[in-house]
């Protein structure tokens, strides 16, 4: 890899590789298109007016910068480290997904594409994509596993209200993985006018890099805000990981800051030992799916296994290739939190801070709850609160045995 010695921020190489991970494992029909996206993105990056456009919409439409908030009551309750939340749940559409979508949709416009397709699990990426398409008058089709359509009804309605077509996917086992297969199939059939807006730091090159770049605004802001608030960098970063885009966005600007401990939290579902989980790095091994080599949940014969998590947004059997590389480099620690831990964190955050978090960052919070009490009061934790929990109230109510 063509990297500056001592920097972990220069990847991927020309072929889209982070070490052995990443790459471009797609059908020939898609290759010319992938190369076109790569060229268009390289040209856009070199054009200051592209970043100006992103900055404009980030500020006036998404509502950036998101605050860095000292969660004082939670800090007091846990009695240890000083806890900050990076509040990306306050973004328009309710999660960090808007950062990436705005970048990709502006790129699609530059490329003259008129139709946008996207896959979605929890519906957050789908809603963000439908929103940007409404804003710019683009046709939008969102592929969503039929099971997820059922468990995320409010987001399905939101997407339809925004003018998007929601396509329930019944192939395979009807979840996020199958939605991504179906989006790729649609793209193969409609390469001429369609742009595929991928929701996480996965897929064929240049997507993992491009999505990371668009999400890095999270870490760049957090760094400045922490310096302003505390006069120094945080000691520990914590973020949840499904595909890994909110985590990569927070982590990437800090990768070369050696004193900063970085922790990614995967979804352990019912427990990694039960086999019912979504922890690809903890319980998987390297393989090739959806255009890239990365850690995957798979059986001994290389067949992909279904992920399990209470959080539909973490319910994916793979993970962005850069995370796989950071794991093997040892720069980022990857741990996991169970459904039960996440639910407890969800409740605690609501009660102590008046913030109902999405179930995804509730996994990150579960790990903060675990480590904070054992750390000194001057230890600074920055956790990415990447989404709000409105979409999850039905799921959580069901688990608490309540009816809404």
């Amino acid at each position, binding site marked *: 890899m063509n990297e500056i010695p001592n920097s972990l921020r220069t990847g991927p*190489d*020309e*072929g889209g*590789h982070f070490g052995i991970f990443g*790459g*471009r*494992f*797609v*059908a*020939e*029909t*898609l*290759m*010319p*298109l992938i190369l076109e996206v790569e060229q268009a993105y390289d040209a856009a990056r070199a054009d200051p007016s592209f970043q100006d456009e992103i900055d404009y919409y980030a500020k006036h439409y998404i509502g950036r910068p998101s605050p860095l908030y000292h969660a004082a009551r939670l800090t007091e309750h846990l009695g240890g480290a000083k806890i900050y939340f990076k509040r990306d749940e306050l973004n328009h559409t309710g999660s960090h997904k808007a950062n990436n979508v705005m970048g990709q949709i502006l790129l699609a416009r530059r490329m003259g594409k008129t139709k946008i397709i996207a896959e979605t699990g929890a519906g957050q990426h789908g809603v963000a994509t439908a929103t940007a398409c409404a804003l710019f008058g683009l046709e939008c089709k969102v592929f969503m596993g039929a099971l997820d359509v059922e468990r995320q009804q409010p987001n399905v309605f939101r997407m339809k209200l925004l003018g998007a077509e929601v396509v329930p996917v019944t*192939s*395979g086992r009807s979840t996020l*993985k*199958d939605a991504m*297969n179906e989006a*790729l*199939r649609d793209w*193969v*059939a*409609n*390469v*001429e006018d369609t742009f595929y807006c991928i929701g996480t730091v996965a897929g064929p090159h240049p997507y993992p890099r491009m999505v990371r770049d668009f999400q890095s605004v999270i870490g760049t802001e957090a760094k400045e805000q922490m310096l302003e608030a505390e006069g120094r960098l945080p000691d520990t970063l914590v973020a949840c990981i499904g595909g890994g885009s909110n985590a990569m966005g927070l982590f990437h600007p800090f990768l070369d800051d050696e004193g900063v401990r970085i922790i990614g939290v995967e979804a352990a579902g019912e427990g990694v030992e039960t086999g019912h989980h979504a922890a690809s790095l903890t319980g998987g091994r390297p*393989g*090739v*799916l*959806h*255009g890239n080599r990365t850690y*995957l949940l*798979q059986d*001994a*014969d*290389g*067949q*992909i296994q279904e992920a399990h998590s209470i959080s539909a947004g973490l319910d994916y059997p793979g993970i962005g290739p850069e995370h796989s590389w950071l794991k093997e480099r040892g720069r980022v620690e990857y741990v996991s939190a169970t459904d039960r831990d996440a639910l407890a964190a969800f409740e605690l955050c609501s009660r102590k801070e008046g913030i109902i978090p999405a179930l995804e960052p509730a996994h990150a919070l579960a790990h903060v709850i675990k480590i904070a009490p054992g750390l000194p009061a001057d230890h600074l934790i920055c956790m990415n609160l990447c989404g709000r929990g409105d979409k999850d109230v039905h799921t959580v109510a069901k688990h608490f045995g309540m009816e809404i």
Partner: protein
Amino acid sequence: MTAEPIAAEDFAPDSGRIKARFDRLRAEGRGGLVTFLTAGDPDFDTSLEILKGLPGAGADVIELGMPFTDPMADGPAIQAAGLRALKAGQTMVKTLELTRALRESDAEVPIILMGYYNPIYSYGVERFLADARAAGVDGLIIVDLPPEEDDELCLPAVRAGLNFIRLATPTTDAKRLPAVLRNTSGFLYYVSILGITGTKEIDDAPVRAAVERLKQHTDLPIAVGFGIKTPEQVAAICENAEAAVVGSAIVRRLEQGLDAEGKPTPGLARDVLDYVASLAEGTRRG
């Protein structure tokens, strides 16, 4: 990274079966029929029974799909076939067993394994190539390995004496074609439509033009696939291509012979083979 082209002398001698088959077709003055079935669909024994009957029914080249949970370039028919096979316990080891048994029954018919990279990567590339060669496999078509990833499997395969057959598509323009042709051997598979398998009807005129264009760049035989399901379409394709590939339509025919539990009904193999025989008629017209 794009692999450098490897010199012809680095290609290990292959089985020669693909070349011999296309030489014979040329001598007979007709096009060939390439048939696709998923290994182990609907179960190992039925699959083997059909496969053994294919050469007699008129299949000139046999493509055998390696089942995968996430076939991103395949339509509903082949997706379902893969899931049926996996449910019936098909594994890579069993697919190679099936190939070996087929090879024992026919020493000449070219056998191409077709599928996606992960099951091969999981099995181990070197071990896979050695075992596939030993089982009588002649070539590979791996959908998610474009020329940009030639280091993964294409180059090891041609060094191990297996043909690596590439797909060219309507999006493969003149600028990209040399990369697609580099390191490919056996034949070139032209994907006739923009889309996944078994979902659109083939459109004669543009396909004919595309085949003509490809012939200006390669001496390899050209097989055309995606969207072919009648003897008439086979005949039309064979007017200027060396072979026609039929996949989803055969798989659907097989599916029709399954009962509500997905178990094969009596006469299923015969019915699939009769259909193949009718398609083969198309190679003898014109």
